[in-house]
Each structure stands twice: as structure tokens, then as C-alpha cells.
């Protein structure tokens, strides 16, 4: 029971990370395509400016909670995916640095260098997260000792690549939806155009991803065993449809919120399907790390549950306050260098 509660919390932390940092990653990926003028580009950075660091902490919390509640899953996941995870780390390092360093030297070469880096590392992070999660849904070649027998190339299988493209598409749409809220004038018009452009691609990739998931993973089994669980994917799809409806109706906050729910839903849909597994072994079902053989002691799980139950609502409370504080569209004054 305790393990299952922790599995739900584990899903939740990853999902919240995707739903929040997803728009930062999407904005960075959009930068060269819709940041025509210097002021546009500065607006794209500033649309993420006060938020990205707090969003990224959800990843650190997700990693930390994996370590605390499921140390074996943490150990195997991070060592098996050694190279892609370090690539993700380098991307996140450079993303943070590009926010901080870009405007510190007023030279065109310097600024455009960081713009290029910012674009590349955000795109790379989208791809790696998508690829890693697709492989987790499918299972990776680990043996009973947790030793990885695959390769980086092996992770870039067709399903992994589809996952990467799908994640990238919804992160971009998420970033564009956020930018609509934070911008005005021609940049906002371009953000809307990006939404309309990405929308059919996201739908297409979603369908492709669902089809391949059904063909290549065992995720459906949990749903067939407990049909009530179908509510998760159904609500997920409903949230996606609502996104489009709200966008067309000009209800922009609701559109962004619905899309955030879609991202939460898609993460839940996948992870519910692997329960009680966490790191599925594609070599040997016995080697799969589950919430039972991978969990911490009951004492640790209880103490950490207390910590999370107290702290996470507090964190959400002050983060919501921060979002409200900086919710308004950016003004010309906001975009001046200080």
C-alpha cells in the first residue's frame, strides 16, 4: 500500500515537472523560429525568466524522491541510462547558463552564440526526455544485477525516436501557449500561428505514439485488468481536445491549463501502464525493478510521506503566488536591460 502511494507520488512529481518545465523547454526550442527581433527574443527568454529555475527543481525533487523511496530504481535508471542522462544534465546546465550569461556582455556575437546554444540545448532536452520515457514504457535491457546490456544507439530505436518527437511536439505547443499569455502584438500573433502549426503535428504524433505503444509495450494489460483505469487516458484526450476548444474561444489561460493537464495525463497514462514495474527489463521479467523489490524500508517511506505531505502543498502555495505575481504579459519596460 505504502509502495503504491509512493508510486503515485513518483508519477506526480515527474508529471508536474513535464507540465511546468515543458513550456520553458518549448519556448527555447521556438526561439529561432519566432524570435525575429532582439526584443522578441528577449521576450521569449523573459517569458520563462522568473519560472524556469523553480520549474527545474521539480526534476531535482523527482530525482531525489526516486532516490529516497526507490533507491534501487534510482540506481539502475541513472547508471543504465548513463550517457543520455549526462547529456540531459549538460543540456540543463547550458540552458541555465544561457539565461544568466546572455545579456551580460553586449556584443552581437556573444548574444547570438548563447541564442544558438539555448535553442540546441532545449531541443536536446526535449528529445532526451521523450526518448528516455518511451524506453521506460517499453523496457530496457538490464539483467538481474541491474547491469545495462544495451547501447546509446539501442535507445534510439523507432519507438524511442517516436517518443522523442512526440514529447518535443507537445513541449513546443506548451511553450507557444505560454508565450501567447505572456506576449503582445506581432510576437503573440506568431505564437498563435505556431500553436496552429504544431497542433496537427502533435495530434499525428500522439496517434502514432499510441499505436506503437500498443504494438510494442505491455501497457494495455493493466488497463484490461482494471478497466476503471481507462478514465486516465480518456481524461487525457479530453484535456487535449479542451485545449483546442479554449484556444479557439480565446480563453487562453484555460487553454494553457488544459494542455498542462494533458501533459500530466499522458505521463500518468504511460506510468500507470507499467505499474507495479518501474524499470522494466526487456531481457528477463525477473530482472524488472518493481515498487516492491525496489522500495525503501517502511520507516523511510513513512517519514518521507510525512515530509512530502507537509512540504509539497507549501511549495505549490508559494509557486502559485509567484505565477500570479508574474502572470501579466510582458511590457516594454520589462524588456529593458537592467
Amino acid at each position, binding site marked *: 500500500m505504502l509502495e503504491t502511494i509512493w508510486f503515485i507520488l513518483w508519477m506526480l512529481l515527474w508529471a508536474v515537472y513535464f507540465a511546468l518545465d515543458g513550456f520553458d523547454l518549448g519556448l527555447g526550442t521556438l526561439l529561432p523560429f519566432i524570435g525575429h527581433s532582439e526584443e522578441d527574443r528577449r521576450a521569449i527568454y523573459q517569458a520563462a*525568466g522568473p*519560472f524556469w529555475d*523553480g520549474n527545474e527543481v521539480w526534476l531535482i*525533487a523527482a530525482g*531525489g524522491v526516486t532516490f*529516497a523511496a526507490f533507491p534501487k530504481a534510482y540506481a539502475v535508471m541513472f547508471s543504465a541510462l548513463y550517457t543520455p*542522462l*549526462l547529456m540531459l544534465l549538460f543540456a540543463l546546465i547550458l540552458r541555465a547558463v544561457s539565461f544568466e550569461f546572455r545579456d551580460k556582455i553586449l556584443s552581437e556575437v556573444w548574444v547570438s552564440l548563447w541564442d544558438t546554444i539555448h535553442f540546441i540545448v532545449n531541443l536536446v532536452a526535449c528529445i532526451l526526455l521523450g526518448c528516455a520515457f518511451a524506453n521506460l514504457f517499453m523496457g530496457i535491457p538490464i539483467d538481474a544485477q541491474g547491469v545495462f546490456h544495451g547501447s546509446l544507439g539501442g535507445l534510439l530505436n523507432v519507438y524511442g525516436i517516436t517518443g522523442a518527437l512526440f514529447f518535443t511536439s507537445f513541449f513546443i505547443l506548451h511553450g507557444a501557449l505560454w508565450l501567447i499569455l505572456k506576449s503582445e502584438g506581432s510576437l503573440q500573433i506568431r505564437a498563435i500561428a505556431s500553436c496552429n502549426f504544431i497542433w496537427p503535428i502533435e495530434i499525428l504524433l500522439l496517434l502514432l505514439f499510441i499505436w506503437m505503444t500498443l504494438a510494442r509495450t505491455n501497457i494495455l494489460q493493466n488497463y484490461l485488468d482494471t478497466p476503471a483505469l481507462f478514465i486516465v487516458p480518456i481524461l487525457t484526450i479530453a484535456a487535449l481536445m479542451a485545449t483546442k476548444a479554449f484556444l479557439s474561444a480565446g480563453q487562453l489561460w484555460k487553454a494553457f491549463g488544459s494542455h498542462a493537464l494533458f501533459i500530466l495525463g499522458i505521463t500518468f497514462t504511460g506510468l500507470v501502464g507499467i505499474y507495479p514495474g518501474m524499470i522494466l527489463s526487456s531481457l528477463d521479467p525477473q530482472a524488472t525493478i518493481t515498487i516492491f523489490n525496489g522500495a525503501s524500508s517502511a520507516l523511510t517511506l513513512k517519514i518521507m510521506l510525512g*515530509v512530502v505531505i507537509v512540504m509539497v502543498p507549501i511549495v505549490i502555495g508559494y509557486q502559485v503566488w509567484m505565477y500570479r*505575481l508574474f502572470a501579466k504579459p510582458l511590457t516594454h519596460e520589462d524588456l529593458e536591460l537592467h
Partner: protein
Amino acid sequence: MDVVMLSRLQFAATVFFHFIFVPLTLGLSVLVAFMETRYCQTQDPVWKQHTKFWGRLFLINFTLGVVTGITLEFQFGTNWSRYSEYVGDIFGSLLAIEATVAFFLESTFLAIWVFGWKKLSSKAHCACIWLVTLGGNISALWIILANGFMQHPVGYTISETAKRAELSSFAEVFGNGFAWWMYGHTVLGAWTLGGFFVLGVSAWHLLRNHQTEFFRRSFKLAAPWTLIMAILVAATGDFNGKDVAEHQPAKLAAMEAQWETERNVPFNLLVIPNVQEERNKVEAIAIPGLMSFIAYGSSDAEINGLKDFPKEDRPPVAATFWSFRLMVGLGMLFILLGLWAFLARNKETINPKLLKGLVHNIPLPYLALGLGWAVAEIGRQPWLVYGLMRTQDGVSPLAASQVSVSFIAFIVLYTILGVLDIYLLRKYAIKGPDSEEE
């Protein structure tokens, strides 16, 4: 090189690089918070200028501290997976608490502080920097509690069925005295560093008669702070040493290059160890009984020599010994320099020799903090968790080639980032404060 050595090198490189940025984050945040509090109390715009000038340097430094910290959380899993599995029940929870209690607080309120100058009242804005300071210093507590468990594991049992260490008492892990003294010593060291940073940058400007009034004020604020912290660092270091003597006798022997087990051990001001021959080449200027006294509070106490420990249980003697000696020497220098700055702070003109000394001193607290960690971590060897798990047993099942590539990538990336960051810090430190706004 094998995976163990490569992973150790990579961890050492990334953790030392991380700790270039952390202490200034911890130390300068407190001082910036003081400055802004003064602004709130007096509404004197010069205090606001101070907050903004030192705050900008704080920010340039902060980013690299944050991103290089993520590396460490990843690395326990990527490179030390056997270790993570073995002690994750305890160690992992401390890291998770650090993230949920401290990182969110620090990063969220820092963003509000940076972008919220015009959106918040001056009091609410000032509260934000205090929360940032609190977040940073609490995060240091949890990570040092985690390190404290590696140094002196408490509150656990070994589960035979799960083949790992499991939490038996959270209160013991949290109340680990060894860790709390380490925390005090580390944080006070960071606060000292912050103080010397402000003194050093101010001295640079004062030497050039640039913005004299502004930097005299910074100097006056930082001088008493720095002196007090430098003294407290030494004091907590003493308690730290007593804990080491009690729980890590091999480390203590290496720190002092004490080969034989003896009573009434003197402290030799000058020592040059010869590790090969297991003796000291030079031992001179002895203060009788002092070593025994420092370690156990009695000049008659017995200290275990290195020869009491099998060779495979001894830490690398030379690295531990020299790191410790140099750290202590620097600590003494900081007290003297802090005292001099304190006495000079109200003088009509400050002696240029002091000012030059303070400028050249800027890197030294960084060095001292690095050396302190070298004593703690190299001195802990060959143990990963003292007495419980050896370093070689904690490494991930990786190919050496994977770690070689990532190690080189870290070195290249970190070197570039480090150079850029120091360049930017220098640039903005030299530029001085912006003219008053509004």
C-alpha cells in the same frame, strides 16, 4: 585507469567545482540580506545601491552553483549506483528532503527577488532575499547531514534480506553530532568567504579611489562580520577535530602524520612526512602535549598512530596531511587579516598594504574551503561510508570508456563555464555600482 578511479576523479572534479560557487552563495546572500534590511529600515537609496551591486555579483555566481549541484544529485546514481542502492534508504531521503524543503524555497524566492523589485513592497522584497538565504543555508544542512552519514554512520541497521543499510532512527540521523559540527564549520567558512569577498572587492576600489564612499560602507559592514566568522570557523574546527579523533582515528592520524601510537603527543609546527618509510623526515618546533590536548582535551591522552591501522585501511597520508596543514594555516591568516580590517575600518585612510592584501586574499578562502573538503573526503578513504562500505564497492557497473568520455566532457564544459563566470564576476565587480535609479 579503471572505473573506480575515473569515477572518483570525476566526482572529485565536479564536487570541487561545485564548491567554488556554493560558499559565495551562502555567504554573500546573508550580507546582501543585511544590506537590503538596512535599506528597508532607513530608506537610504545608497543601501539599495549596495543591495543591487552585491546582489548582481551574487546572481552571476548563483547560477553556476545551482547547475553544478544538479550534477551531484545525478552522479550518485550514474556513477555510484551500488552505493546508492546500499544506503539510499537513508542517504536518498536526506537529498529528497533537501530538494523539497530548501531548493524550491531558494529558487522560487530568488526569482521573485530578481524580477519583483517593482511588484512588491520593500519589506516583502526584503523578506524574499532572507528566504533565499534561509533556503541556501538549509540546503547546506541537509547535504552535510547526508555527508555526515558517510563520515559517521548512525541510526541504521543492516538488513540481511535486503542486503543494504536501512533507517532505524531518523532522529539519530538528523541529530548526528558529527554532521552538525561539520555543518557549522562549513557554513561559517562560507560566511567568512563572503565577508572576505566583499572586503576584497571593496579594497580593490578603495585602492583606486573609485566610489570611495560606497565601498567604505561595504567595507565597514563586512569587516566585523568577517572577523567574527573567521574566529568561529576556527572554534568549530576544533570541535570537528575532536569528533574526528573519536570516530575516525585513522583520518586524525593522517591529518597529523602521526605514525606511532603515543601518549602526551606534542604538536610540531614544522612537519614533513615521508610516507614510504612511514616516518616524518622533519619534526621541529614542538609544543608539548598540544596534539593530545587538541584531539582529546587532555595533554596526556593517547593518539593512535597510522601504524596501528593495516595499510589498506589508511587514507592517503600526504594529501590529507598537507590539505589539513594548509587549511589551518590559512584559517590563522584569516583571523589576523580579519582583525586588521576590523581595526582599520573607521580610520581616515586605510593602509594600502591592508587593501592590497585583501585583494590578493580573495581566492584564499576558496582554497581553504576546498582543502577542508579534501581533508574530510580524502581522509575518509578507503571508506565510502566509514567502516561500512569501501569506495571501490560503491561504483556503478559501467565501462571505463563511458566514464572517460564523460570525465573529459565535464572538464571541458566546466573549464569554459568557470572561466566565463570568473570573467563576468570580475567585470561586474570592477564596474562598480550603477548610479542611483529613479
